[in-house]
């Protein structure tokens, strides 16, 4: 069934969009990532103009994250306190990110920088997570108890706060900094930032994996809602029809994904996320390295 999208001004297959939304929704619920880093490139491929894809994707992530958070709230696996601290940083970062984005746009090459950002971040994060979770799986198999978390420099910082759900007593500075950097990247790359946030929470803040997913989703809702409004009011690129089609699939997928995620072991969850991140990274890297079939591209004029 073909459907004409009023803002994107293209006609696409409605079932294709529902299916895409569903698959990305499952992943979103399982891993606590918004799925934007998967969906945005997929939308480019089916012919949605990039500006519309990025803005609409933000809106869809709001829906799937909200659906996911509700499921996590019932399970009490959301650290609202930590989420709020991260969010404060995230909003500051998003505002900074828009400034950085506009600066890069004035220099040209914004596409390339966004893609390089993706390749570098996805590659590094995916690689580290993969190795770490592989080691964790090996350790549990050999029967050794996992090493207790060591106290590091993070625990020496001031403004300590107790995060009961995560079982942490740490300074608010690292979470705010994590929030800011994720916010910046989110605005530049047009994603919720979950794939950066999740590993940062696990490895930098030492939060338990089960809590990380819900908390990440919680703060993604607000950052992407902010981004959606920004795009809708400045660039007029949010396509509500596209968003509805994606989110109908997405919210259902997120519910299924959350249930799958609960049944799986933390290490397995992490290794799967790592593999997925690496695959997307590889695809984007190939795009940069291989000679494209069409060397020329058409863009809207703008200075």
């Amino acid at each position, binding site marked *: *069934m*073909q*459907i*004409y999208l*009023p*803002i994107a*001004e*293209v*006609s696409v297959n409605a079932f294709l969009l529902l299916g895409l939304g569903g698959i990305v929704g499952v992943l979103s619920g399982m891993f606590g990532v918004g799925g934007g880093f998967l969906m945005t490139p997929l939308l480019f491929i089916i*012919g949605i103009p990039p500006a519309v894809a990025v803005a609409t994707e933000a*809106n*869809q992530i*709001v*829906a*799937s*994250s*909200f*659906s*996911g958070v*509700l*499921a996590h709230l*019932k399970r009490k696996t959301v650290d609202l306190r930590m989420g709020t601290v991260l969010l404060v940083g995230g909003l500051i970062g998003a505002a900074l990110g828009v400034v950085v984005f506009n600066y890069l746009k004035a220099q*040209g*090459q914004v*596409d*390339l920088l966004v893609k390089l950002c993706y390749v570098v971040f996805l590659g590094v994060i995916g690689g580290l997570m993969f190795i770490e979770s592989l080691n964790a799986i090996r350790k549990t198999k050999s029967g050794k108890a996992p090493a207790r978390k060591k106290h590091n420099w993070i625990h020496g910082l001031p403004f300590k706060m107790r995060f009961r759900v995560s079982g942490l007593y740490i300074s608010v500075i690292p979470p705010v900094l994590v929030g800011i950097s994720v916010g910046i990247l989110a605005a530049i790359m047009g994603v919720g930032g979950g794939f950066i946030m999740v590993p940062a929470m696990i490895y930098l803040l030492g939060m338990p994996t089960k809590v990380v997913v819900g908390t990440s989703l919680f703060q993604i809702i607000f950052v992407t*809602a902010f981004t*959606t*409004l920004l*795009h*809708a*009011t400045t660039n*007029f690129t*949010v396509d*509500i*029809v596209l*968003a*509805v089609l994606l*989110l*109908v699939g997405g*919210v*259902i997928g*997120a*519910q299924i994904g959350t249930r799958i995620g609960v049944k799986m072991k933390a290490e397995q969850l992490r290794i799967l996320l790592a593999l997925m991140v690496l695959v997307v990274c590889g695809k984007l890297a190939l*795009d*940069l*390295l*291989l*000679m*494209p079939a*069409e*060397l*020329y*591209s*058409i*863009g*809207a*004029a*703008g200075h």
Partner: protein
Amino acid sequence: MRYLAAFLIFILTLPALAEEVVLGLSKDTVSIDTSFDGSEILIFGAVKREAPIPAEPRLQVIVTVSGPSEEVVVRRKEKRLGIWVNTDAVEVDRAPSFYAVSTSTLLGLSLTDTEDLRHRVSIPRAIRSVGAPDTIEDATKFTDALIRIKSKANQYQLNEGTISIDEQTLFRTAIKLPAALTEGDYKTRIFLTRGGNVISKYETSIYVRKVGLERWLFKLSRENALIYGLMSLAIAISAGWLASAVFRIFRA
């Protein structure tokens, strides 16, 4: 057929002047609704004349349909430090979002180069590019690329020999509009040529409009962007909540 009959009566009652076009369209408005998946417009007409039909050279007809023009940038990738990067860019001052040329025979036979230049009929002539920087020597490659990419998407069409002419008087053709269509007035021109020279020209417009929900959403997104944005968020949040509620019922 109904159109055709009414139209023939119309032209027969007109006082004949010279060799001139009288035109009909199957529809002069294309409505883009939610299920829009491209459209086809039938363009038909007749040649009105007072003198007997000149035997030679034969009459040829050219029809062009052109969408709203826009300024675009064509970029070229080059390998730098191992990766493919956009390097050179050429601005095209005016490129129609849609452009179709239909002819009764090969375009080169229906129209001389001078006439093409004057009326901007062929696809390369319909595009205007003056802004190529001095550093780029092969600027024509950029406009070629624009035409190639747009042609692949069916947005630029050269349909040679698709106009049928009966008795050098009646002609008709069909123009296929692709699904990815932008709103605007689509300028439609009909040229009558003999020996490559334009002997008559006729212009009209086809109106492409979003209707119903499409129109309402598009207007809202431009005129009340904040409300539109908030509405998008409200829909997203309620859909998220609904899915979660439905699943809870399922499990209970």
